[in-house]
């Protein structure tokens, strides 16, 4: 098949960067330098100070840069030159960034010991919100949340003419920070099971596995609440919400994965493959995964119910807690804060 040649003859992107943008980018670069020092286990400052400096530089630099980038022009769609810029059109910088990010994931999943320096950097934060030392997943969660918040701010400022995008961006940032980062951390601090209220079956298949539910129910009334939450949301809430709003209520309002894609990924969204072939591959993949998860869950539940002994145990646990669970007691005391007051 013939292909059409590119029309790009000259590079029209503006090469000279204004001085304040240079300064703001410099501040971000210093933050990355501080992170890489930690990566090599070099700590010129005390840990908490180095962490504070790294995160502050990153935050100040990116907020400043966002303002400089978008406040000069009237609000509106800003896509000029996305296919001309090296980083956003698979150029040298884009390619190297891709390798570095993929490499980071490989280290994170299979060789976390190489990240010890960086993990160590997040100890002060981890102790204060989780009550224990940082590990590779806390490092990942922290980086992830920082990226969503800072680039979420950039996205919001870029699309400030559009109230839908503003509300939605606030929502993804909120759910990432509170439900995917802080609440699980506090749960660990309180010795409760690490639980993500925004993960649902079949996205996270273990959430309807009887052993996992049984474990949750055995941890006390909060655990029982989590069991209810998991089962009701997965089997009732998700289908109803999806019927009325489509998959967007989750993917672009709540999900952490969608949060990163809609904030950090915004600068690259034009590179997604829109061919029919890509769409077909996606369809085949998601439906085979769904079928696999459904069958697996049914099989595991079947096996579990055959072992009646266990089955009775989980219900005993739930019944015991249901008798007068703490959370219900608390809810009842404060019901007028939530439910309408019948006396009025």
């Amino acid at each position, binding site marked *: 098949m013939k292909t059409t040649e590119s029309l790009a003859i*000259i590079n029209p992107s503006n090469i000279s960067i204004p001085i304040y943008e240079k300064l703001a980018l410099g501040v971000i670069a210093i933050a990355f330098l501080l992170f890489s020092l930690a990566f090599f286990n070099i700590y010129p400052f005390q840990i908490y100070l180095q962490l504070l400096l790294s995160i502050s530089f990153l935050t100040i630099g990116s907020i400043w840069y966002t303002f400089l980038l978008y406040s000069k022009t009237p609000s509106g769609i800003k896509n000029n030159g996305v296919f001309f810029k090296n980083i956003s059109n698979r150029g040298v910088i884009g390619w190297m960034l891709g390798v570095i990010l993929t490499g980071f994931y490989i280290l994170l999943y299979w060789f976390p010991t190489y990240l010890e320096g960086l993990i160590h950097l997040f100890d002060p934060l981890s102790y204060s919100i989780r009550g224990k030392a940082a590990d590779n997943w806390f490092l990942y969660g922290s980086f992830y949340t920082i990226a969503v918040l800072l680039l979420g701010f950039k996205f919001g400022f870029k699309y400030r003419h559009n109230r839908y995008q503003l509300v939605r961006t606030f929502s993804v940032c909120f759910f990432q920070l509170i439900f995917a980062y802080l609440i699980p951390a506090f749960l660990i601090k309180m010795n409760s099971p690490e639980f993500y209220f925004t993960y649902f079956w079949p996205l996270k298949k273990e959430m309807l596995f009887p052993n996992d539910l049984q474990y949750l129910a055995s941890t006390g009334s909060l655990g029982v609440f989590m069991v209810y939450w998991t089962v009701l949301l997965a089997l009732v809430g998700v289908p109803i919400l999806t019927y009325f709003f489509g998959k967007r209520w989750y993917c672009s309002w709540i999900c952490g994965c969608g949060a990163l894609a809609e904030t950090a990924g915004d600068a690259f969204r034009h590179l997604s493959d829109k061919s029919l072939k890509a769409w077909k591959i996606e369809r085949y993949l998601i439906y085979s995964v769904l079928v696999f998860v459904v069958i697996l869950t049914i099989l595991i539940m079947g096996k579990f119910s055959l072992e009646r002994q266990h089955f009775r145990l989980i219900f005993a646990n739930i019944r015991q807690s249901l008798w007068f669970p703490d959370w219900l007691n608390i809810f009842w005391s404060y019901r007028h804060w939530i439910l309408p007051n019948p006396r009025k």
Partner: protein
Amino acid sequence: MSIFEFILLFMNVVIIGNGISGITAARHIRKLSNASITVISEEADYFFSRTALMYIYMGHMRLQDTQPYENWFWEKNKISLLKKRVESVDFTTKKIILQDHSNINYDKLIIATGSKSNNYNCKGTELEGVRSLYHLQDLTYIDKISAGLNRAVIVGGGLIGVELAEMFHSRNIPVTFLVRETSFWGKVLPPEEANMIDRHLFEHHIDLKLKPELTEIIGEAGKVVAIKASTDEEISCGFVGITIGVSPNIDFLKFSALKTNKGILVNEFLETNIEDVYAIGDCAELENPDQDRKSIEAIWYTGRMMGEVVAQSICGTKTAYHPGIWFNSAKFFDIEYQVYGKIDPILPEGIETIYWEHKEGKKSIRINFSSVDKAVIGFNLMGIRFRHNICEQWIKERKTIDYVVKHLQEANFDPEFFKRYETEIQKLYLEKFNQ
């Protein structure tokens, strides 16, 4: 299989032009028949969205991103594409003569050659750096000339002019925009909306000059270096964009038996005076257009509708072209524009208008209605989206302005969480017309 369907199997349809009109016709003929279909175009290998050309220059898209169908689509649907220039058509022997002197026969011919840019009449238009924007080749030319360009002057305040202004602006090239009228697109937009766009152009630092006309293009060594305006002002520039409208692209049919005026004359079935020859899209001129419609409407939607209609007729269901109520949409930098029905730049006798503008001056709603029976006849919207089907239905059913103002929220098509202004408009309506 009926005899007619059997004949359809062997029918040889040739379409000249692979724009929205020609391609829509080809697709619909394929849906309805097994005819052999050939689309001839010199401009591009594959159908692309002409209205998205500007976004290639601005770096939002690549050419392949503006192609609505992937490259395999044509072979799969047995639509042959021929990248050649048509020299002339021999209607007596039903033969198309190509520039390389080869011939192609046809049983049915659809001419969908679109428009060409109008030329400006003044000294210096032959210089390098003077160009319009219509074809893909124009875009390549403008892209080449943009390197190191000190200033671009655009002549003519219409949709393509403002597109060019936005294009150069995206590459930080200063733009002077010469508009002959008292405001941008004053021949189409009512003064309030036109002023809004003027303000918006100034906000984007476009050097908009209203009223002066181009009188001379000054060149050095065959290249543009400056222009002279009717105010005797000289503006130095390396590019002059001529965007004073388009006209049907039918030069290759001159001196043939085909009846033409400005465009190729067609009846309501889009048939020309020669049997088995049809014309659709920008190049067609309707002999008897419907009420409130023009004989030539060079816009995307009408081209698409004509393509669908001609496919029906060719495949056995003779169908008349009745486009219904006028509608169009565009975007001027950041301000979206929609029109439904009849909106005249100067309010005609017997028509009243209600116009609401947001305090920041970037959104507006205009509803025109007949002062006799209060029936709504048109909507003009800036920065706010209305539902096409609702507006069309209200105009068709001649709903009164009272009804429309009361039910305005049904027409709103802005995304969720957007601020709504129905109550402001209702208040304004009550104040102005004191009901």
